[in-house]
């Protein structure tokens, strides 16, 4: 998902030198994953849109603080996760109530990228999304980063700033809870 770390660092250096247009390269590279992260976390298309814009603007304002020896996407995700957490806190109500403008993605093609298996049914995805929003925010974000965003446990830990064991604990506890919720929903 991430562009080459060195390329990212060069783009950042170029922006800091005044080449603002180079920022489009970073936006293009990371807007998809970040938008999906925000969408999965909030369940709202318009909130995800606003948050994605906010994340990139905040990143631009703080670009001089980015340590170019580190991965840009980790830094960007950390910033994004913090903004999403603040957004969810500020809203202070269950995001499950936001179903009015919620759009569950329609499968674009049949089968996954590897060509194996079928797409999960819309019903099961919808049920999973709904149950996901009943999880505590920190469990939910760990699961989304790990499985929807396909990151490693180490990358999730680097983004959230938690220890590897804490991330694993959240993921497994979250999955356990999700499993229970899904089974209850089936009954």
């Amino acid at each position, binding site marked *: 998902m991430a562009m080459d770390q*060195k*390329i990212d*660092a*060069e*783009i*950042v*250096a*170029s922006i*800091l*030198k*005044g*080449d*603002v247009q*180079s*920022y*489009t*390269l970073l*936006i*293009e590279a990371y*807007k*998809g994953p970040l*938008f*999906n992260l925000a*969408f999965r976390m909030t369940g709202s*298309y318009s909130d*995800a*849109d606003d948050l*994605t*814009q906010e994340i*990139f*603007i905040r990143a*631009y*304002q703080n670009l*001089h603080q980015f*340590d*170019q020896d580190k991965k840009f996407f980790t830094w960007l995700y950390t910033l994004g996760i913090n903004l999403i957490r603040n957004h969810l806190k500020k809203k202070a109500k269950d995001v499950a109530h936001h179903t009015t403008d919620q*759009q569950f*993605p*329609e*499968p*674009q093609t049949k089968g*996954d990228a590897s060509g194996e*298996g079928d*797409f*999960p049914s819309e019903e*099961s*995805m919808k049920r*999973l999304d709904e149950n996901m929003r009943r999880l505590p925010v920190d469990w939910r974000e760990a*699961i989304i980063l790990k*499985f*929807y965003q*396909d990151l490693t446990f180490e990358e999730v830990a680097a983004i959230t700033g938690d220890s590897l064991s804490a991330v694993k604990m959240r993921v*497994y506890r979250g*999955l*356990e809870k*999700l*499993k229970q919720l*899904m089974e209850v929903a089936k009954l």
Partner: protein
Amino acid sequence: MMFSNEEEKLARFRDLTEIMAKAPRQETPDGLTGRIMARLPERKATVRRLFRTPVFATDLTFGFRRPVAKTECAFYFLLIGFFYFVFGIILMIGLKSMTANLPVTVWLGIQPAFSLLTALCLIAIGVGLYVDGDTAVRVARIGTLLYAVLIILNGWIGIVSTHVPVAAFFSTTFSTAGVMMAAFLGIAVKHYTPEPISSQGVHA
């Protein structure tokens, strides 16, 4: 609940994780990039930012923030080499006139030669980096380490052998400055990149 390994743990939730992995990605809204670019604030010139502006690759607060090109790396070695060269010449002339009628300790006597030798080595590394950066960078790494060790050793011998407070003070000062320059060169070598650094390469 105990599991033997990660796979076993995950296998229990395979039905859920497969749904997540196969869930289609949401398309980003149209014109998102344009809207972000339009909302970007102008970067105000503050004193803090002025110091962080990478005129060179150097950041005055946090060392090097981006890769150091071979010409820049060579320049740093030549610059510090030139400093030692001038310092050695001054010591040579100064010591001759100051201590014409005074006994000079062995340590003090070899200081001009030490400075000139250091200058010679650093300039040689600088030239080497400029001519063939990839090969010379290994020598530069070892050379910088050796330079740091010699500077510390020289300072320590100076303090121990002179027994003159003023001489000990100057020895400590120059050693500290030398160590800082060695650290600076070390960071420059660490961030050395053989490739040309320009945003053009990124856009290509």
